[in-house]
């Protein structure tokens, strides 16, 4: 722009210079020509008077320097000429100035010489006798003038050129300066050219728009990052070469990776072959999922290809921790298997005995014991089914059971009474101690808690063992403890005895009896009453189960 302005200024300056030279010359030349013509006229008048008064003698005294003077008779023949020999001169009658003088008394004309280098002025006057006196003067033509002035013109030209260049540089710089100094970040704060203000306003509005869009984008990115960041599931995005583009905190934690892992290969984070397999699948455009054990936990890993226009652009990996789910599933499966097993065993004996009876293969005096066995087994089944029903009831939260204000000690007395015969058979002493403990709860459940705990304490006891039930009320809690001197529970089993059908003795021995659901019921019933169950046990020395109820 500076260059262009500079060039234009130079060009304009030169054009103006040349034009003024030409015009100036023309005007001046014309002016001087006119002055000269007027002088010539005056000289002609003077000479005419001279000739009229003195005749041909006038010419003899005449000293002509600048002028050429000729005297022409009426026929057009030259009688006298100050410059040339009259004999050689042609008839002048046809000359324009002569013609004019003949007709009007005075005439003049201008003629260029053959080379154009000279111009001649002619002025003619008719004398009283009809002859014509003519004066002429020659003048340098404009071209000659110009040629003569070449040197000064050139000097002036050069000076003008230098001046115009210097000025043009400064001016163009000055013009461009505000443009260069425009502050595009704050377009409206610029003062400079009014012509630019539409642009600046436009830029300003576009910048505002851009800023708005940028804020919006940032906000969206933040939202997305927050969502991805607070996700519990691990998420990793990979490009089509299997390099990590993005990884969320959960995945980082899971794979114990740091931020450096972005850009590195998935293999460098986790060398699990199954994971690689589904990832390779995803990078070939096929969805893959698998349950994979990583660092001791089970993860369901989904690998989804990310496609755009049917070309795989990358893959997304999702890690869902399914350890708990699997555990729950496992427990459920085991429960079903256990229930069917537990139900099948008594049914087998029942059907066996019944078959014998049906076919009349039993001796008469064996029939009663057989029926007794069938009765016992059926009782076992009923007990089992009842336990399962009450458990599923507890699973539902026992909403339909009524809470009442009751005394735990009274309940314990009842339970101990009903277990007394069983304890006697096994030669176990059952003792109850403690204080009255009023409590708001569900009587059936609380009863079954005490009953089941005591039942276990009696069953898993030595001969002449002891079971001590104690109820204390202090510090805002009611503590029920059932202590026995029995066989005890090994530490590795202590956590699992509350699971359904879990038995320390894997043989599901019938000798002891029971359904394997007792402690499970205790656990659930305690949970409904917000109570805590603790087990302290030493193998061979006995166990203590402590249930702490909040008041």
């Amino acid at each position, binding site marked *: 722009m500076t260059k262009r302005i500079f060039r234009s200024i130079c060009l304009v300056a030169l054009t103006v210079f040349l034009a003024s030279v030409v015009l100036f010359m023309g005007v001046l030349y014309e002016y001087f020509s006119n002055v000269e013509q007027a002088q010539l006229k005056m000289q002609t008048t003077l000479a005419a008077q001279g000739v009229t008064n003195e005749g041909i003698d006038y010419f003899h005294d005449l000293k002509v320097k600048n002028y050429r003077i000729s005297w022409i008779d009426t026929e057009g023949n030259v009688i006298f000429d100050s410059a040339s020999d009259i004999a050689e001169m042609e008839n002048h009658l046809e000359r324009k100035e002569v013609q004019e003088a003949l007709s009007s008394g005075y005439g003049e004309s201008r003629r260029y010489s053959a080379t154009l280098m000279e111009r001649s002025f002619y002025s003619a006057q008719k004398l009283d006798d009809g002859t014509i006196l003519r004066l002429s003067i020659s003048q340098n033509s404009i071209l000659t003038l110009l040629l003569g002035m070449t040197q000064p013109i050139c000097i002036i030209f050069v000076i003008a050129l230098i001046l115009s260049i210097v000025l043009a540089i400064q001016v163009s710089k000055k013009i461009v300066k505000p443009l260069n100094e425009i502050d595009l970040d704050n377009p409206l704060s610029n003062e400079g050219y009014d012509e630019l203000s539409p642009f600046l306003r436009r830029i300003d509005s576009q910048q505002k728009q851009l800023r708005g869009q940028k804020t919006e984008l940032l906000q969206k990115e933040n939202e997305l990052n927050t969502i991805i960041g607070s996700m519990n599931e691990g998420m990793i995005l990979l490009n089509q070469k*299997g390099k990590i583009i993005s990884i969320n905190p959960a995945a980082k934690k899971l794979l114990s990776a740091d931020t450096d892992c972005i850009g590195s*290969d998935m*293999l*460098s984070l986790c*060398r*699990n*072959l199954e994971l*690689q397999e589904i990832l390779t699948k995803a990078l070939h455009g096929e969805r893959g999922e698998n349950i994979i054990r990583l660092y001791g936990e089970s993860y369901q890993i989904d690998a989804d290809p990310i496609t755009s226009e049917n070309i795989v652009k990358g893959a997304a990996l999702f890690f869902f921790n399914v350890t708990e789910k699997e555990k729950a599933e496992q427990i459920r499966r085991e429960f079903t298997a256990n229930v069917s097993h537990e139900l099948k065993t008594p049914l087998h004996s029942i059907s066996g005995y019944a078959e014998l009876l049906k076919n009349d293969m039993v001796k008469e005096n064996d029939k009663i014991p057989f029926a007794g066995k069938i009765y016992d087994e059926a009782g076992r089944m009923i007990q089992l089914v009842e336990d399962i029903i009450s458990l599923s009831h507890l699973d539902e939260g026992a909403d339909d059971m009524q809470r009442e204000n009751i005394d735990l000690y009274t309940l314990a007395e009842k339970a101990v009474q009903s277990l007394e015969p069983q304890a006697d058979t096994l030669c176990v002493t059952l003792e109850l101690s403690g204080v009255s403990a009023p409590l708001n709860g569900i009587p059936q459940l609380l009863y079954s808690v005490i009953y089941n705990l005591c039942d276990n304490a009696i069953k898993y006891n030595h001969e002449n063992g002891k079971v001590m039930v104690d109820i204390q009320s202090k510090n805002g809690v009611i503590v029920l403890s059932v202590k026995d001197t029995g066989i005890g529970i090994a530490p590795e089993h202590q956590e699992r005895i509350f699971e359904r059908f879990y038995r320390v003795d894997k043989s599901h021995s019938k000798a002891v009896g029971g359904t394997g659901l007792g402690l499970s019921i205790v656990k659930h019933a305690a949970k409904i009453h917000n109570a805590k169950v603790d087990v302290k046990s030493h193998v061979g020395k006995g166990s203590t189960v402590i249930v702490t109820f909040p008041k």
Partner: protein
Amino acid sequence: MRLKFDEQLDLLNKELITMGAFCENAIAMSAKALTEGNPALAKAVPDLSQIDHKEREIETMCLKLLLQQQPVAKDLRVVSSALKMVTDMARIGAQSADIAEIITLANIHATDDTQIIYDMSVAVIKMVTDSIDAFVKKDMQMAKAVIDYDDVVDSYFDKVKKMLIELFSKPETDGEYAIDLLMIAKYFERIGDHAVNIAKWVLFSITGNKEG
């Protein structure tokens, strides 16, 4: 030119890690079969063909790189150590398969005797995993730790030997069982040595010196 070379080096790195993953998998499965005394599990240990195939692949890749790109300085160290490492990895795979083979003979049962070999296998697996991790992360400290950890495995081997000597002195001992145990222990010990080799090559590729 360099871009393509970088890509090839990247691929080599990836393939080596995959090879490492194969080895880890093989040794982990063998160890699991051993501790559970489960011959069926041992049969599931991948046979050598997969690892061998990978070994050939990586070797070819290394030789191609050496010929076509003529690497110098660190690149040369990386490629040449890869060439050496892959051999050690293949040996780990082969010895894991050997352990699995012994287990399939079903002389081994999960007893108290296998507990010490189980502990040994845990130590060896840690070494192998750490040596590959050291390679992945180019971690000198980790590589040195692997080299030092070999003493632990060696001491386990000594313990196994002592235990077996005791076992032999008892008249009721099943000789085949005892010898199988010895072989397995020896294989684990060898695997530990290979892990040390890998760690040394990792050190070499970083520093140019096998001792770090």
